[in-house]
């Protein structure tokens, strides 16, 4: 039998590929790359928000933020587990991350400068992530699709929390409202850039579409995010920093100014404001923990021997 016949049939029938199924090597490799990048993004993404846990302005907000960052670690775990079903282990993925051989989402290379950034990250960054990720809940690789279902549920919870932070600020004191507007001013374009380069410049996309990993083009997803966000910004009473925003009756969508893709590539290549610090932080945590991981292994080894 043709070894790819089953795979092709499942994909054609919109079914799920499972770990034990045969699959094209490029499908497997592409998925590992994508899931790993997604997992790394959750882990590195803990840093910009973690930056405000110690300073959260109320105990309730502190608890919510701490729980959120914890959820991100949890998402990292599911995703590394999903990647492991493709025959690679977490330690190796970590190594590739720290060696700069695998990427994470560039959005986390921007600094969180004020408390309002925690709100803006929740509202805009998680919002953009959800738009990107919801289609992945139907992606053709079973373990990834199932991980995404759980993650998307939590992400939309996080997005609501971010929105709520901004709403409280936007309806608070003049200083709080200014803080909220400032955060939106800084996070808007980087959030738009999260959908990747315009379709005309995008690599990987066509094959991913065919394999039903990706289901919508970058530009379609970006438009969806813009349409959704413009409406919410109105409710918040905050201004999106794009003078070109206008409703296009004909298209039935909002026209908007594209983000600066040169900046995006600069960040992707490692030269964003925080790339070096994010990686150095992760590396330091990893190095500092080496003796602990060794102790845990040595102890487990002893217990195996003596019991």
């Amino acid at each position, binding site marked *: 039998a043709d070894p790819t016949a089953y795979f092709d049939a499942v994909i054609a029938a919109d079914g799920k590929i499972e770990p034990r199924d045969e699959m094209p090597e490029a499908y497997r490799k592409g998925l590992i790359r994508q899931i790993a990048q997604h997992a790394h993004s959750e882990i590195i993404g803990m840093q910009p928000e973690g930056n405000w846990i110690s300073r959260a302005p109320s105990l309730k907000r502190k608890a919510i933020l701490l729980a959120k960052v914890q959820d991100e670690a949890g998402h990292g*775990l599911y995703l590394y587990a999903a990647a492991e079903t493709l025959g690679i282990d977490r330690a190796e993925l970590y190594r590739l991350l720290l060696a700069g051989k695998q990427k994470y989402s560039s959005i986390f290379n921007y600094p969180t400068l004020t408390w309002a950034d925690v709100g803006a990250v929740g509202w805009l960054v998680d919002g953009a992530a959800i738009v990107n990720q919801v289609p992945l809940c139907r992606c053709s690789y079973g373990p990834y699709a199932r991980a995404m279902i759980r993650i998307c549920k939590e992400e939309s919870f996080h997005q609501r929390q971010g929105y709520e932070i901004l709403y409280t600020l936007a309806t608070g004191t003049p200083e709080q409202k200014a803080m909220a507007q400032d955060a939106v001013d800084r996070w808007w374009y980087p959030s738009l850039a999260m959908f990747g380069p315009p379709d005309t410049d995008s690599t990987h996309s066509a094959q991913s579409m065919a394999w039903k990993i990706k289901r919508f083009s970058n530009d379609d997803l970006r438009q969806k995010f813009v349409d959704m966000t413009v409406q919410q910004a109105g409710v918040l009473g905050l201004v999106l920093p794009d003078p070109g925003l206008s409703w296009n009756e004909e298209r039935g969508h909002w026209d908007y100014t594209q983000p600066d893709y040169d900046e995006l590539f600069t960040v992707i290549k490692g030269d964003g404001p925080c790339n070096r610090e994010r990686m150095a932080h992760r590396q330091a*945590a990893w190095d500092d923990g080496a003796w602990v991981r060794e102790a845990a292994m040595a102890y487990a080894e002893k217990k195996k021997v003596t019991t």
Partner: protein
Amino acid sequence: MTGVDDVLALGDDALIAAQRLAEWTTNAPELEEDIALANIALDLLGQARLLLTYAGELEGEGRTEDDLAYLRGDREFRNVQLVELPRGDFADALVRMLFFALYQRELYDGLVIGDDARLAEIAAKAAKEVAYHVDHSTLWTLRLGDGTPESHRRAQEAVDRLWPYTHELFEGDVPREGWLAAVDAVLAEATLTRPSDEDSRFRPTGGRKGVHTEHLSYLLAEMQVLHRAHPGASW
């Protein structure tokens, strides 16, 4: 009747312990531990909120949990010094958690059957959480103490460094015997040596009266900065 300061002491212990533990977020030796430490910090933060709210009610001046957490200076905090010591290494964190969780177990066990119904209720909820903190810190004390020579050395140093600060936990009504027996059992299995009471004349104290180490005011400066910068704002 329960005094405001007694409840503040319990609430401040939990709050400051949570604040220190939360510093581990993104710094833990493995992802599972990032999650576990955040979990425990969340439990402690939850206890702190219930206790500070209750302390505010007892006080009767309308102060909320946030007023008490964010608008007192270090001389008004009532926590023991053990929980305010700097983050230290992973052995510090887990040995400190062992000492503190075992203390909280004794504490909450007593409150559950005590006269104050409100405290009994808080304690009943917290006791379940603390049981997990005890398990988690016990497991790690064993792993570190009986792991590698380096982890043993670090764990022993943590025990020696933190031990003097445990005496302050027992200046109130919580009996030390049960705690000591539980600690001894874990340390013995972890091949760690517990400093003898005779050898330890260094017994720092003062936290319950607002006399802290030099570390607490730095912790509070960071914790309170944003809240204090916007007097009267809602968040």
